[in-house]
């Protein structure tokens, strides 16, 4: 019964997504939305994917990674090589970008995820910088001047990728694996003592997060005509981190809402980059001082919609309670 209800909910959500995407596509084609708004929409989509993928690592698994721009860069360059150098179609590029980023996530995750808290943060930050410097030094991908990429990111591809990302991450969170990850977030040593293979789950979440960051990288690269290593410095990592933190550490819908809101704000402030960063940083400090759990905390938007049913954490579809 529950499963039928959930499936219905899933398909109706998907129908809304498809209708939204088709309507927006018509608006774009018809020229109702000018290029400014179209660009903003594309940035929102890419940022949603990035925020959701980092949310899985920081919000669900509690691993404080601040090198996410590294995976974005890996994905962007891998996809650019696939389409521009090898001449393969764009969907292949998206998949390759995701896989390359996932593999680099695996390579960096296995050794560094033994570290905790601040050390992991600084190691991932270092990883992001290493990726940037490596890209800077490879002539095949243009070094500092970067690569020109043709504009292949289309609205349907973007919506599809966003939808897949959200569905996969939400389902992962609600699965056995996801609950193992949440237990690691709550107390790693206790989770370990309860027989959870913490390294395995941390690496798993890290790799999935890296995969989607790579997908976002492919969309990003084919949206902006040119990619340069400087675009993927740790400022970019901080940008993504801010989305997750402000949305709420542990709330998927929070991350998505923050991605939408902050992208709109920063698009309007893009003519004043200094002001934008000053406001960003002030928001970050004030947020941490007065509401360290972020806008939504660990609550999801759905728990506001059905008040009373799940006041504490969320009651998942299998009837088990998690105090998420």
């Amino acid at each position, binding site marked *: 019964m529950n499963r039928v209800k959930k499936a219905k909910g899933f398909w109706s959500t998907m129908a809304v997504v498809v209708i939204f995407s088709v309507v927006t596509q018509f608006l774009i084609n018809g020229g109702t939305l000018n290029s400014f708004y179209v660009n903003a929409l594309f940035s929102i989509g890419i940022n949603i994917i990035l925020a959701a993928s980092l949310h899985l690592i920081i919000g669900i698994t509690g691993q404080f990674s601040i090198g996410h721009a590294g995976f974005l860069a890996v994905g962007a360059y891998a996809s650019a090589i696939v389409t521009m150098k090898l001449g393969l179609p764009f969907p292949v590029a998206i998949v390759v970008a995701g896989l390359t980023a996932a593999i680099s996530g695996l390579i960096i995750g296995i050794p560094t995820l033994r570290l905790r*808290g601040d050390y992991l*943060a600084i*190691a991932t930050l270092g990883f992001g910088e290493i990726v940037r410097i490596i890209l800077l030094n490879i002539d095949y991908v243009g070094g500092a001047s970067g690569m020109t990429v043709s504009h292949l990111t289309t609205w349907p591809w973007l919506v599809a990728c966003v939808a897949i990302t959200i569905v996969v991450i939400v389902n992962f969170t609600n699965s056995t694996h996801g609950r193992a990850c949440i237990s690691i977030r709550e107390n790693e040593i206790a989770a370990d003592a309860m027989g959870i293979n913490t390294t395995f789950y941390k690496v798993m979440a890290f790799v999935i997060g890296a995969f989607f960051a790579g997908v976002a990288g492919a969309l990003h690269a084919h949206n902006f005509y040119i990619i340069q290593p400087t675009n993927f410095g*740790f400022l970019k990592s901080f940008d993504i981190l801010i989305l997750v933190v402000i949305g709420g550490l542990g709330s998927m819908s929070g991350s998505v809402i923050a991605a939408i809101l902050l992208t709109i704000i920063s698009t309007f402030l893009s003519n004043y980059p*200094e002001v934008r960063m000053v406001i960003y940083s*002030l928001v*970050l*400090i004030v947020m*941490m001082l007065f509401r360290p759990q972020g806008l939504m905390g660990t609550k999801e938007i759905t728990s506001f919609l059905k008040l009373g049913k799940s006041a504490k954490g969320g009651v998942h579809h299998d009837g088990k309670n998690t105090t998420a």
Partner: protein
Amino acid sequence: MEQFIQQLVNGISLGSIYALIALGYTMVYGIVKLINFAHGDVFMVGAFIGFYSITILDLGFFTALLISMAACAIFGVLIERIAYKPLRNATRIAALITAIGVSLFIEYGTIYIRGAQPEAYPNGIVPLKSLEIFGVKISGQSILILAVSVFLMIVLQFIVHKTKIGKAMRAVSHDMDAAKLMGINVNNTISATFAIGSALAGAAGVVFGMYYTKIEPLMGIIPGLKAFVAAVLGGIGIIPGAMAGGLLLGVIESLVSAMGGSLWRDAVAFIVLILILIFRPAGLFGKNVREKV
């Protein structure tokens, strides 16, 4: 061989700047267990204060150095009081995110106030002669940097080991709650730590400006991160470790650039960091500590 020694000398002067910044990181981490990301930006502010004292106020190098240290000490205490103190009992991730926020705020606040254009440090404020020993040319600036750093490190050792506030700092870093019970004013001790660490960063900023002649609002990021690497390398929380780590990192970097890898220089620091974290997470001078639930 001469080339090698020359690089070693360069590495030591660079490394002593890293060591000065790393001392602030390591002291703060030892007491409040927080990576003070804003520390690199205090270094930048110190460089600018030194620059303006020399060019606008027309002061000598050592006066500028002192002014910059004093101003940075106040600045560091302000940062601690406003941004970090309310979060003392919060989660470590919240504190870390605040530190990132403060860092971005200082950087872009500076850009907002004075623009992003770099400034050139004036030359020849201190009459400097180069020394030549066995064919190795040591520039006067290198000697100055080394002298300033060594002097400040000796002063720091004296403060930490011989004074009352140093004793309080050691007690708080050992066990904050027990120190409180013994009547130590923890808040003042933490502020003093921030003041000393930031003063050292300010001094590092001025000597950095002298050495590299170019300063800009975002210059604190990379030296700040490398100084953190140096602190981890020596064992975070350990003062001699930070000095040794800083010097070692500077030497490694100079040797890498001497071997033709100057483009890879920044990457090497992070590779060293990851290797150290994997193989010896407590640092070169540290002991392993058991974790409890």
